[in-house]
C-alpha cells in the first residue's frame, strides 16, 4: 500500500502478474465485469495494475475487453484484476446476476432483440 523507498516498482513490468498464473480464490470469467471502486489509487502499484485501473476510470469493461485494450493475455487480466479486488480497488460482477442465470425467458429476449435489429 505504501511506496517503497525510491518508488521503484517491486517487480518489472514484464512480470505484470508477479509470476502468478492463477489467483487462489477469485475465478474470473471472460465476461466478468470489472468496475472501479471509490477507493483512491494508492502508491506502489505496478504499471500493469495502474494501466488496468486507468482503463476502468472511464467505465465498466469485461475481462476480455480489458485484455484486448491493454494487449495483455486474458490470464494476466484475471490475475491483475483479482489482486486489485483484494485491495478493494476493483469490484467484479458475474456476467449474469445469479438470480437471472436460469431465467427461462432469457433466450426469448435474445431472439426478440436480434429480430429487432434486422432491417
Amino acid at each position, binding site marked *: 500500500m505504501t511506496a517503497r523507498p525510491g518508488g521503484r516498482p517491486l517487480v518489472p513490468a514484464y512480470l505484470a502478474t508477479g509470476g502468478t498464473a492463477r489467483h487462489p480464490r477469485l475465478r474470473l470469467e471472460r465476461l466478468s465485469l470489472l468496475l472501479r471502486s471509490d477507493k483512491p489509487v494508492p502508491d506502489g502499484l505496478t504499471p500493469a495494475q495502474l494501466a488496468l485501473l486507468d482503463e476502468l476510470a472511464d467505465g465498466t469493461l469485461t475481462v476480455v475487453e480489458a485484455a484486448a485494450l491493454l494487449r495483455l493475455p486474458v490470464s494476466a487480466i484475471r490475475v491483475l484484476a483479482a489482486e486489485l479486488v483484494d485491495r478493494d480497488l476493483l469490484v467484479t460482477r458475474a456476467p449474469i446476476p445469479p438470480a*437471472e442465470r436460469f431465467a*427461462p425467458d432469457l433466450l426469448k429476449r435474445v431472439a426478440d432483440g436480434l429480430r429487432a435489429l434486422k432491417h
Partner: protein
Amino acid sequence: MASAPSSTSRVHLPDTARDLVKILVTGPFGVGKTTLIDSVSEIRPLHTEEHLTEASAQVDDLDGVRDKVTTTVAVDFGRISLPDGIVLYLFGTPGQERFRPLWDDIAYGALGALVLVDSRRVDASFDVLGLVEESGLPYAVAFNAFPDAPRHYTQDQLRAALDLDPGTPMVTCDAREANSSLDALLALVQHLIDRQNTATAPESV
C-alpha cells in the same frame, strides 16, 4: 474513418448492461468468422492474443527432452447490445482439436455455437464439428455463401456430408450481410429455445 486505436470510449459498457451472454462463432480458418462478427457487432471487433503451449510436432528428440512450443492465436470478438440490458458477445473461436483448452475456456457459460462451414471444403469442418459435439454445446450450422461456392448440393447432401443430426438447424448465410448474419444467429437461438421447451415440457408417459 481514421480513428486512433486508443479510442476506447466506445468499448465501455452501457450502464444498462445487466445480462452478458455469449455465443461462439466457430469454424476452420478463413471461413468468415470475423466477417460475420464484424457485420453485426456494435464495436469494431477486438481481439485477444491467446498463448497455447503444446507438444511440438515430431522433431529430433535425441536427448529425451520433450519440446514444447508456444503458439499464439488471435481470438476476435464483437458485441451486440440488445434491449432489456442484454449484451450478446460473439467469440470467433478456432475449432481445431489442438485449441481445445482455449475452446473450453471460451465455451464456459456460452449459450451455444454457430458453426460456419465453407461448402467448397466441407471436410475442413469435420474437426470443428467433432469438438463442438464433444463439448456438449448446442449448435447450428451455417454455410457461408462464398461467390464461387458450388450450388448444386441439396440440403440433404450437405447434411449427409456433415453427418448432422436431423434436429440440428442448417442455414445458408452471407457473413458480410448483417441481416443474413442475424438470421443465422436467430436459427441458433430458436434451436436453443426449442431445446429448452423440450427439456422443460412435462414428460408424457
